[in-house]
């Protein structure tokens, strides 16, 4: 914090001290009286003082330590996330009732709210249920009651069709509670799992979330991470060192960047907590309250019939020269505003939320700047989860296609590219939300099936530069002989596939936006029945 600048902390030392002293004073005053002996007025006095001390979390030391690490406390997080005065807390007076290690004897004010604030409130005017782990008391460890609170809040969120937000900041299991704590996690994981796809479940890991605890975030829909604060791993550096002798730091092992860029566990990467909170609000704006609803409509002021003549020149003359697909997306969506999903992971496939004519849409597009837009193992994992999320929450999918073939390499083959790309293509086929395709350039081989008519795209639009065939000219000639020009001259004109309705219409790139906006309107009430099944057996 720079000199002279006002502190951003609101739960200051003075704030906490005042509450603690008030509580001490009241406790002292009535120490000889039992609860039934108090008058109504006295009961109120005790209640107010106790509420105050419970809200001050784990006490001055814990609060200071949180601030020293540059982290907000849960009370500050609630203030930053929720519209002022809208958060309603549930279970502030909860405490452990576990017998082991005399946990039940730990005073109420030592672990206020059993280490987790739970409740509901409005975020940008829309109701959201939330639970925030409090690292300042007992390291935010999870005991049975702590888990029960989560379960209670999550159940209510599903009943009321509201998203769930979990802010993880916890040292893990409360070991003193033994198998009760373990059962608490079991409950939590079960809850996360059965509500998966019912209501959006968002998790921000702003602090430690290690060991088995991290499976709860992993079972939710997405994970927000913060540089320098997120610690997510199953086995920590100490155990890894002890067992394998590998030296690795926490940040390198399980920080925000490595999880978002390499392991693919993280979904959103933020440089600090403020950015993270902005991202949470941004994502929520695109999602409905539950799978039963459509995402909210937002007036964006960008006309639906705005044409985009600049797209006429974006496709290079050469088939293999990269072009900026993000520029295409930016040009087409409302106000050029789109929000990327797993931006740092598998950059060869772009996944993003945006609005078109005010309606929330999910965009999936090959990125010719990375791997020539070829599909690989990681893009399979990324894209399939994104499209399944869009489908689960009634967000239409728009694909911008420039598909070359599968990424080549031994590691891809032995790593199982077959099953990973199958998963991606299955996710597209399975989605029953409106699906709209814009083929910008190449549509070669199996990767071009994302967005194809056969896989259920409702409208396939192709720019005049679209070239559709079973294989790229290069590999086709390797199989059937002849020269590339001869092969291409048979198939490269989009009128060839358009003749058989593989393409619904060849369009002027300048009309892309107005045509998508019109289609979204037309497909608003789309409904499809799938054959009876309990669920799919998707590739792993």
């Amino acid at each position, binding site marked *: 914090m720079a000199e002279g600048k006002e502190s951003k902390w609101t739960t200051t030392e003075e704030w906490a001290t005042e509450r603690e002293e008030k509580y001490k004073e009241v406790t002292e005053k009535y120490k000889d009286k039992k609860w039934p002996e108090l008058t109504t007025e006295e009961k109120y006095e005790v209640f107010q003082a106790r509420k105050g001390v419970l809200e001050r979390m784990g006490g001055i030391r814990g609060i200071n330590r949180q601030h020293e690490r540059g982290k907000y406390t849960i009370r500050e997080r609630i203030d930053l996330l929720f519209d002022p005065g809208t958060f309603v807390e549930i279970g502030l007076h909860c405490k452990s009732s576990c017998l082991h290690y005399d946990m039940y004897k730990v005073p109420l004010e030592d672990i206020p709210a059993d280490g987790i604030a739970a409740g509901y409130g409005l975020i940008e005017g829309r109701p959201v249920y939330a639970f925030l782990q409090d690292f300042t008391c007992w390291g935010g460890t999870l005991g049975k009651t702590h888990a029960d609170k989560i379960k209670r809040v999550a159940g209510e969120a599903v009943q009321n069709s509201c998203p769930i937000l979990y802010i993880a900041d916890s040292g893990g299991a409360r070991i003193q509670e033994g198998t009760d704590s373990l059962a608490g996690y079991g409950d939590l994981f079960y809850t996360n799992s059965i509500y998966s796809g019912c209501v959006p479940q968002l998790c921000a890991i702003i602090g430690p979330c290690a060991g088995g605890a991290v499976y709860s975030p992993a079972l939710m829909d997405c994970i927000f991470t913060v540089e320098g604060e997120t610690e997510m791993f199953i*086995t920590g550096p100490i155990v890894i060192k002890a067992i394998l002798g590998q030296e690795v730091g926490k940040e390198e092992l399980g920080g925000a960047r490595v999880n978002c860029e390499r392991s693919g566990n993280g979904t959103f990467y933020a440089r600090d907590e403020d950015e993270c909170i902005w991202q949470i609000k941004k994502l929520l704006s695109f999602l409905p309250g539950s799978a039963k609803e459509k995402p909210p409509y937002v007036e964006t002021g960008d006309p639906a019939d705005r044409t985009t003549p600049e797209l006429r020149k974006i496709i290079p003359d050469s088939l293999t020269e990269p072009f900026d697909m993000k520029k295409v997306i930016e040009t087409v969506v409302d106000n050029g505003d789109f929000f990327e999903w797993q931006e740092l992971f598998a950059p060869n496939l772009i996944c993003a939320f945006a609005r078109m004519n005010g309606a929330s849409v999910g965009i999936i597009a090959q990125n010719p700047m990375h791997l020539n837009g070829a599909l690989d193992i990681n893009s399979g994992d990324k894209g399939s989860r994104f499209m399944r999320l869009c489908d689960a929450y009634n967000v239409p999918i728009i694909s911008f296609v420039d598909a070359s073939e599968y990424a080549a390499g031994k590691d891809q083959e032995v790593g199982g590219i077959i099953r990973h790309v199958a998963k991606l293509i299955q996710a597209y086929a399975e989605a029953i939300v409106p699906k709209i395709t814009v083929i910008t350039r190449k549509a070669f081989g199996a990767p071009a099936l994302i967005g194809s*008519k056969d896989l259920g795209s409702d409208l396939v639009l192709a720019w005049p530069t679209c070239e559709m065939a079973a294989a790229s000219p290069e590999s086709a000639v390797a199989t059937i002989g002849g020269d590339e020009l001869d092969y291409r001259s048979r198939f490269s004109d989009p009128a060839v596939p358009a003749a058989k309705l593989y393409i619904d219409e060849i369009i002027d790139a300048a009309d892309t936006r107005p045509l998508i906006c019109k289609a979204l309107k037309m497909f608003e009430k789309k409904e499809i029945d799938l054959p009876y099944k309990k669920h799919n057996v998707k590739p792993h």
Partner: protein
Amino acid sequence: MAEKKTFDDMGTLEKIEHMKKLEAKIHEMGGKKAIKRQHDMEKYTARERLEKLYDPGTFVETGVFCKSVTPHYDVFKEDTPADAVVTGYGTVNGRILYSAFQDITVMGGTLGKIHADKIVRVMKEANNVGCPMLYVIDSEGLRVKEGPDSLSGLGDIVYNMTLFSGAIPQLCAVMGSCTGGITLIPGLADCVFTVDKITKMYANDPATIKAATDEEVEDEDIGGAGVHSGTSGVSTFFVKSEDDCIEQIKRFLSFMPGSAKEKPPHVETGDPPDRTSPELASFVPDSPTRPFNMKKLIGTIVDNGDFMDWQDRYARNLICALARMDGNTVGILAQNPMVLAASLDVNCSDKGSRFIRFCDAYNIPILNLVDVPGYLPGTDQEWMGIIRHGAKMLYSYAEATVPEITVVTRKAYGGSYLGMCSKDMGADIVMVWPGCEMAVMGPAGAVNVIERKAIKAAEDPNAKRAELLKEYRNLFLIATTPAANLNLDSVIDPVETRPLVCKALKLFKDKDVKLPYKKHELMPE
């Protein structure tokens, strides 16, 4: 010489005769030379394969007279018997199976539009009547000359495979080459049979890989049955020969229902459900770290010791298998203490979660035999995403609505125990053997955390630690502690495992659970 009769000149009998001749010609497939080439590679032809698979005389072929109708490259002028795929239905051990056998002797078994239409036609029929569908792949790839037509054909197959995924069992046997886009068929099937020295399956061929990354690889390195069964995880069953493959397909089908609407068939096995297993009394070693043979344990409790391994060569630290108990199909998941000390890792989570979802989709009850110490430590596991992969196991157990029975044989620690279907994750009954250790983390680690202050303050911290450790072990590692809170249902004599599991299966057979409304889940990838 008499002028050749046109079809119109023929009488009815002659027309029948003529049609039979045409059909016989089609049955000759791509001709003698091509067939010989197939035999030289120790491969059967498409029609020989179906003869071996189906009960004699039961196969009914559809689309015999199909051929390519694509104008590009004048493909329509070529002779393409059955358009390179034999499709139809018949019975296997008395139960109906629909199938498509690609015929590599005709145009390299390439997939064109009509070829695809034939496959889609039988798939749809299989779904309509609620029967399994088998794809036998032996193809050089998409029929490039058909251009967007063949791509559209593949799209149609993929779309329908997706619709029927989880509706009817879809089996794929790769008996030959399977490259590029065709790999989506094994990729989307419920299980894949690969044949030693015969299967050749990859997204990009060695030449393309060489051109792209300058790596020198052989077909077998990236596409053989060995690499797909042992490393890539694409294959489910590794078989030694085509004959073996046919046998294994039959065996697999015997465990399966026709569709998700049915239960798997009951088979009289003659093994009494109340048979106890005295050999299990002292089966588990006293030391928690000494390995024991879990497969032997499985053999002891299932009907007649007979079980079929699922992905036997992949992620061997977790055993998945189909077996029968009291004549009913069960899916078994069990730790293998002989590999990686039975810990859970990325690959076994992928394997296990898919197996659980497969069982659940087809109403196969799940039995878990647990001896799990934790998750495999290491930077590579973390960076490969053990968090998202491990979560799939948890997810799949929670989602499953079939009967789930968990037997803890020795140990069950922390998150990994939840990952093997604890009570809270949805197990209908959790039975533990008396020596079982069940705790939130390893005892030594736990004591270090809880008693940090006491140990630090003691004169002899090591002695204090040992003392507290003993105390901890006595308090938490006795099965009655979790039993008191219903974290487990019963502590059983190992000898009684089979009778108790059989009883439970009987009791839970009509289990019905409703999950809250959703279009579908969002399990981690």
